């Protein structure tokens, strides 16, 4: 989840979230951990995905773009997010697995509250 629009390189520019596979797994474990008191109660979320389009194929991966509207209810106020999303998918038998996911929030450079959930 880049901080700046059009981010070219996540290693040279700060991100709102930039997780590799290990960090992604740890983030999920953290959310579910019974002693992660600041994460409780778990936020309730809703995701609406639309405008799914194939962007191309390269290096054995399928690039898919979509729009995302997400909402979450933390302990207090409701938050709404809008984003353009790109998935890179790898075929696995009759289905696909996500190799990479990029979420560009439309207001990524604006003032945001802590984002403790995955969109």
């Amino acid at each position, binding site marked *: *989840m880049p*901080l700046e629009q059009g981010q070219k390189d*996540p*290693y*040279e*520019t*700060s*991100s*709102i*979230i*930039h*997780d*590799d596979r*290990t*960090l992604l797994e*740890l*983030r999920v*474990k*953290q959310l579910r*951990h019974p*002693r*992660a008191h*600041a*994460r409780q109660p778990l936020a309730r979320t809703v995701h609406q995905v639309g405008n799914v389009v194939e962007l191309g194929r390269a290096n054995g991966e399928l690039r898919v773009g979509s729009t995302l509207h997400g909402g979450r209810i933390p*302990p*207090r106020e409701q938050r709404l997010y809008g984003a353009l999303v790109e998935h890179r998918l790898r075929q696995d038998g009759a289905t696909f697995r996500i190799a990479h996911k990029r979420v560009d929030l439309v207001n990524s450079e604006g003032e*945001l*509250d*802590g*984002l*403790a959930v995955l969109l």
Partner: protein
Amino acid sequence: MAVARNAPEPGKPGEERYYDIAVRQMRQNGAPDAVWEGTGIWATPRGHGYMGDYHDDDRLVAGLGNPAFEEYRAELIGGWDSPSGSHPARHALEHHHLSNCSFMSQFRQLRIIQPVAVDRSVVYTYSFRMKHAPARMFRDTVAFANVVNGTGSWVLTDDLEVYERIQHGLGAGAPNGSTSAAATGAMSTSRAPRGATGTSEVFIRGQMRAWLDYMTRDA
């Protein structure tokens, strides 16, 4: 912390992976009591307080043996080997904490805390790309900023949620008061007395003393 303790072990110097900095940072937050008790805390006569750094180079493993850091240290210090550590460049590699700012030299980051009201502050964070430093150093700087300062940071979101809940509870008006107490332990009598341990409330008493002085000076 519990999750980070069960995470894969960070790589050895030169074999680091992207997630290492995140895992190390979260583990560090679980410093044992002895580390906190051994951290210096001081209070000044006019109510300010400041605390030593609980980080050290042994705990920030990347600082010792990290090839990029060592390369840059050699670039800065060269053959300087003064036991007094007075070479100006050496200070750029150490941690300095003032009352409202902290310099995390390990990751080339400066934080300045600006109080804007009695119940809120603004924290400005500056990350630096050092001249003549290996490219890897700046990548570590960015990774550290993502982990510690980012809007989706593992560390920051937890901290802010705790602060917000405390603020929300105190602001509700329901509690009669809050209690924050810890022993001061033996204090020196210098102008900036130091608490006996890192959890001393010497700074709270310093604030109360300064407040009392301001309120009664002309009485």
